């Protein structure tokens, strides 16, 4: 029955939880895909914003330098005044380390530097860029800070340019990159066209800048894809610290630098992870709750069926007073009420049957008593009438005495049978030879058999079979069985009483060739007042069975209608021997 409960729970799980789990799985996938796309877009927007700011940074510096150059070229300032202007700009614009104005031949016209300008400034105009300005590859200054040189052509065109050249500290640019924090662990990095790192937002990776390191292989591949003109998809890779990184890239329009924004996926997808965790917990709690509720609901449902089953079993065991008590107002409740009504009716019917049985038994007993007692009483009565007439006849008086004594014995026997049913016969146990007791009984019943036209014979075992028994009680048993056989066997029939020894048991068999007993009545023939005959109390077999069982034995019967019946009495053998024999 437990399996029904399990089935109920599985049904609930299948019907309620499985869809929830499937929903959760689908939600996980959708959530992850959505989160990744959203994070990548957000980080890409940051990278593009940085790239835009870097481009603006250079454009602004370009404008400032162009403005300074134009001012210096188009006004008739004294050289010391030009120098002061340049120096003031250097002081006012922190990112300008030095500013120098060169003519077309590379000769210094004015400079903010107090010492002579670096010699390599003269080489810059030959590297002029068609985009309108030139940016030298960044290098680290004496303080390990990123520095570059920017050269802007002034009037005269590219054929005959004059140049304003500035050494620019990229510190502000670096700070821009440093100030970018994507979440708490995400950062940006900046690399030039040769993949050399210029700025790195991760404080612990700035050593790479100081040592002039290039970007990692993964970052370089990302940059290469960008330079090839394809829009690189967000890339995931594992960094030197073993963390999985989500990287997006954006191109700086001028100069040809790239910005990469990196963020550990553990943080980038933290929201997703948290949602996933919450969803798992929610599903787990829902699952657990459903199981618990289902369990108790199934228990409450099944328990009423269990109660009904239990009462049914009790009634089957004869406890007709058992009733089922069910709560609720449903079909199970109606079933319980109907069951109780049915049980009440069953009790009433049983009482009716018992009443009828008692009445039948009473009739049978009364009929038996009438049968058994009326004949001797009538004989005694007839004898009494005759004795009045023939009192003087001494021979008749003797006959009268014998007749009355005989009939009184019969009456006494009937009364003894009735008394023995109510109270078992006290037995006196002695060592008895079964063969002998059987032979005596058969001999005593021989006249009855002959009168009925039957053959009564014995087949005794070769060895005596000793049991502890009451000779007179055993005689009654044998007589009952033989008498039953005589009464059940048609004239010409045969009755065999045999004994046999089986190990420590002794068997007595009574076989007849009578009419037999129907199978359905075999089970009841040893009951009190049960008879297959039209007359009699039906106590013989019941008394016999009680005597046999009192002596430690048992009696069984087999019968076939039309062929005959066999009673088998089985006694335990005893090692003791009769005193007389022993003497």
């Amino acid at each position, binding site marked *: 029955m*437990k399996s029904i*409960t*399990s089935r109920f*729970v*599985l049904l609930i*799980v299948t019907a309620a*939880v499985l869809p929830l789990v499937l929903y959760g799985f689908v939600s996980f996938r959708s959530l992850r895909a959505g989160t990744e796309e959203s994070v990548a877009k957000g980080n890409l927007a940051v990278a593009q914003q940085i790239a835009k700011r870097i481009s603006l940074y250079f454009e602004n510096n370009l404008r400032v330098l162009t403005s300074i150059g134009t001012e210096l070229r188009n006004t008739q300032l*004294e*050289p*010391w*005044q030009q120098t*002061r202007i340049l*120096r*003031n700009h*250097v*002081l006012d614009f*922190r990112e300008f*380390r030095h500013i120098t104005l060169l003519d077309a031949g590379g000769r210094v016209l004015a400079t*903010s530097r*107090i*010492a002579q300008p670096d010699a390599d400034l003269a080489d810059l105009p030959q590297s002029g860029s068609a985009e309108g300005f030139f940016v030298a590859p960044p290098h*680290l200054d*004496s*303080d*390990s*800070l990123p520095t570059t040189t920017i050269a802007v052509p002034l009037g005269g065109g590219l054929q005959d340019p004059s140049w304003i050249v500035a050494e620019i500290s990229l*510190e502000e640019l*670096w*700070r821009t990159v*440093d100030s970018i924090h994507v979440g708490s662990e995400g950062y940006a990095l900046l690399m030039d066209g040769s993949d050399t790192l210029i700025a790195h937002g991760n*404080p*612990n990776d*700035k*050593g*790479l*800048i*100081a*040592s002039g390191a290039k970007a990692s292989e993964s970052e370089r591949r990302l940059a290469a894809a960008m330079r090839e003109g394809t829009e690189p998809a967000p890339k995931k890779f594992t960094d030197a*610290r*073993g963390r999985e990184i989500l990287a997006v890239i954006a191109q700086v329009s001028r100069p040809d630098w790239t910005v990469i924004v990196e963020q550990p996926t*553990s943080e980038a997808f933290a929201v997703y*992870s948290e949602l*996933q*965790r919450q969803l*798992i*917990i929610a*599903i*787990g709690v829902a*699952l*657990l709750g459903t*199981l618990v509720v289902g*369990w108790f609901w199934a228990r409450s449902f099944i328990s009423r069926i269990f109660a009904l089953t239990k009462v049914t079993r009790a009634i089957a065991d004869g406890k007709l007073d058992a009733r089922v008590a069910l709560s609720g107002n449903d079909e199970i409740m109606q079933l319980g009420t109907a069951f109780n009504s049915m049980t009440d009716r069953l009790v009433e019917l049983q009482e009716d049957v018992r009443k009828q049985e008692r009445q039948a038994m009473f009739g049978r007993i009364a009929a038996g008593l009438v049968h058994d007692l009326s004949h001797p009483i009538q004989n005694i009565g007839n004898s009494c009438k005759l004795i009045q007439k023939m009192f003087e006849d001494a021979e008749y008086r003797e006959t009268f005495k014998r007749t009355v004594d005989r009939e009184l014995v019969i009456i006494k026997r009937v009364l003894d049978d009735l008394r023995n049913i109510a109270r078992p016969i006290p037995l006196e146990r002695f060592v008895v030879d079964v063969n002998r007791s059987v032979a005596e009984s058969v001999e005593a019943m021989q006249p009855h058999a002959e009168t009925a036209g039957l053959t009564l014979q014995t087949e005794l075992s070769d060895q005596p079979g000793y049991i502890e028994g009451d000779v007179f009680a055993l005689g009654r048993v044998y007589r009952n069985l033989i008498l039953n056989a005589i009464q059940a066997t048609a004239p010409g029939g045969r009755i065999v009483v045999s004994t046999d020894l089986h190990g420590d048991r002794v068997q007595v068999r009574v076989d007849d060739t009578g009419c037999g007993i129907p199978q359905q009545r075999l089970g009841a023939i040893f009951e009190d007042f049960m008879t297959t005959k039209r007359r009699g109390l039906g106590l013989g077999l019941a008394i016999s069975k009680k005597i046999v069982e009192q002596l430690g034995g048992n009696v069984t019967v087999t019968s076939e209608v039309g062929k005959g019946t066999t009673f088998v009495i089985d006694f335990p053998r005893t090692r003791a021997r009769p005193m007389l024999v022993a003497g």
Partner: protein
Amino acid sequence: MRCVLVVCLAGAGLMASGACRRETARPQSQVSFRIGMGLGGTSLQSGLPVLINMLFADSLIAVGWNGRPTPRLAESWTWEDDGRTLRLFLRAGATFHDGRPVTSDEVLPVLQRALKEARNTDYFGGFAYVESVEASDDRTIVLRLSRPDAFLLNELTNTTIVASDDPNVGTGPFRIVTRVPHLEFERYGRYYRGVPAIERVEIATYESQRSAWAAMMRGEVDMVQEVARESVDFLQGSSEIETYSSLKPFYIPLVFNLRHPILGRVEARRAVTEAIDRSQIVGDAMRSHGRIADDPVWPSHWAYSTAARRYTYNPVAARLRLDAAGLPIRSAAPGQMASRFHFTCLFWSEDPQFERIALLLQRQLSDVGVDMALEPATLRNLIKRIGANDFDAYLFQVNSGRSFDWTYRYWHSPQPGIPLMQDSGYAGADAILERLRAARSDNETRTAVADLQQRFYEDAPAVFLAWQETTRAVDARFSLGDRTNLDIFANIWQWRPVEPTRRAAR
């Protein structure tokens, strides 16, 4: 039924555990320590001898952050005979690295040799008035002076005690293991102030400060002695390197040659001082890694007077003062700016910071009509021209120490026994400096210092611009312990590896 529940719950648990994040532990710390030192370049001094002494050899007396002498190998001292006898009591339990106890017999030859070496040079320093050194008993050294000298104790802080018969046997927390290919020390297990937690110290020297810095960035060294001002910001936010900044006893003055016809006038110097915005100097040129200076007195010195008068930036007052001094703006020759007067300033060209300071000074003085021309000079050339009195003004950095002997040497007018640091023609503070040297009590010292600060206010030979800040970078795997002395070098023997859990927290 129970199985169903168990499976479901286990599955939920597995899914939940799968959502958990993992963290990785960092590797165990090491107990050896590598220091990177930049030797070449533009540094005035590499600091290597100082560092070696801090590791290898203790002095009898040390000078605290506030300028107070503190006990080291001498656990106490007394002045006797009206300041003409100094009695030093040696500490019991202090030993040389070879196990010998530090006794008077061992210390005496060290002091006698230091005294002899001082007398063989033209600078006697704090030993100038010492007549004799003797041991009165096993633990007492007696120095007898011809006259009281407050600088003697400071001189003793510079005299480290090394075994007289073996220069490799010192008294510091670490003893030398080898000098080649680089200096290597191991901790001295009987160091009297406690056994160092760091077992080995290596000093790797580099051509420049930048090289040492790059080495630290590459993880080759655990500490860099000095980080450039600009690089300090670079490290902010790093969890692997800690930076420790403190004021260093160096100030930057714009020193005037008082023999200059105009700069020799007090009113002109005052006006120049008022015309200079020192906060801009510190904030812009020094990136705020410094502090405004008002005089050459170490601002953390116990006798420093906070009540001293100070100049503030006031260009209007400067113009008025110059006008009153008869220095109006005059028309200029072609190619020159119109100005009140003109002078040339030498500046140290090898440190970019000085060029930017010079440019700022030039612009600020230009605003009040003073034409200051700038002339870059290398370190060698600068020192040469300062000593030769070949300058109008110069911009440089000057050591003050945390006491007054350097101030005395730099600002006292030339005299026998004191090497010529400069000759600006200034003698206005000589008398006060002599009082400071002869001071025998805290009151006398405090009064002399206040007078000196007042003197530098009233008749300053220079514009004192700023105190410099030094920054040291140390790998975050090491904890520096007690930091009452703000220069972390002072307690290097107390440094210890940080536990991994604490490092992670940091």
